[in-house]
């Protein structure tokens, strides 16, 4: 049936049902409906099902990824904090060690200085002592020489001039030996 016939059939008024392909209309509706039902049952239904399933899967995967990302970010933050803490601690330890070293050095130097001054004092004292001793010895020597000179004066008949000369000589000697 062509368009002309279609329009004519519509305008003719009588016998429309004879000219119109009523059977075709019903057949088209029947075939189309049947096709839609069959496709829904065998093709679109399962396909939609799997597409929904996939959408769900993807959504859940995205959720999962989001979650694990947040978790890893948290872990990273934790690690970073730990590292920072460790670094501060290490710095504190180094600082501490340095301080301790400084203190030790100062202490050692103090000790050394004290030791040195003690030694110096000791030496000075010893020197003074030795000097005293030497003076003492010279004095003793002088006394014994005086006594010797006196013995010589007493043991020999000498003139006043001799005596005088002798004493002077002795004194001079003593002065030299001093």
């Amino acid at each position: 049936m062509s368009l002309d016939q279609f329009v004519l059939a519509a305008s003719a008024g009588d016998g429309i049902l004879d000219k119109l392909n009523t059977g075709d209309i019903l057949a088209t509706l029947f075939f189309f409906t049947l096709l839609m039902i069959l496709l829904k049952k065998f093709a679109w239904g399962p396909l939609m099902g799997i597409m929904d399933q996939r959408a769900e899967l993807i959504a859940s995967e995205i959720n999962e990824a989001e979650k694990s990302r947040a978790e890893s970010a948290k872990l990273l933050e934790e690690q970073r904090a730990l590292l920072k803490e460790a670094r501060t601690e290490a710095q504190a330890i180094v600082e501490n060690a340095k301080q301790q070293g400084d203190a030790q050095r100062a202490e050692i130097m103090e000790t050394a200085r004290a030791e040195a001054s003690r030694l110096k004092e000791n030496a000075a004292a010893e020197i003074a002592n030795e000097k005293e001793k030497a003076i003492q010895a010279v004095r003793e020597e002088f006394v014994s020489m005086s006594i010797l000179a006196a013995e010589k004066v007493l043991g020999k008949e000498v003139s006043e001039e001799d005596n005088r000369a002798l004493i002077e000589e002795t004194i001079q000697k003593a002065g030299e030996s001093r």
Partner: protein
Amino acid sequence: MNHVNPKWEFLGLTFNPSNILMLAVTCLIVFLIAFISTRNMKMKPTGMQNFMEWVMDFVKGIIKSNMDWKTGGRFHLLALTLIMFIFVANMLGLPFAIAYDHVLWWKSPTADPTITMTLAVMVLVLTHYYGVKMTGVKNYLLGFTKPLAFMTPLKIIEEFANTLTLGLRLYGNIYAGEILIGLLAGLATAGVGGFLGAILPAMAWQGFSIFIGTIQAFIFVMLSMVYMSHKVQTDH
């Protein structure tokens, strides 16, 4: 060239057995394509499943461009079946036409106005049905007075115009394509010169007919969803 259509009468109804045959072939092909491509479905789609999912998303896009998915989701199956059916129907008449004793048997079912008008009326009736069902009788009737009350006669005419243009646009495009293919085929069989002369235009026109058939299937579904959205949405 002057093919006549076969005609059977049965139970007081007039049948064109050629139409019945081609409808059956179309339905069979559509069903087989859809059925075979949805076997062994996997989460990671391959091959035909990919294609079918693309078609599905494509139709979903058509619906979504007209109404929100909550309203339009129920028309997904209808639109999907329509586009596949019309596309396959448009393609069937392209490779060849079979006429036996001047009676045309093999052609595009959509090259017959009865079938395209049936589809158009079916779609329009469905839009009215869903218009009443989803917005209520009052809103449905009020829809005819929008945007202005005095335009009501125009709105009523529009409904008939929509139906007529929806069906006849598809019919005209496909029927014209088949006529020209038939003429070129007649030229090709007229002689050696005619064959050589017909090769290029026949190939070009067949390619163009494929394009037209695809576009017409898309347009039919698109307009169906446009008309549907006018009826099922109150906020327009």
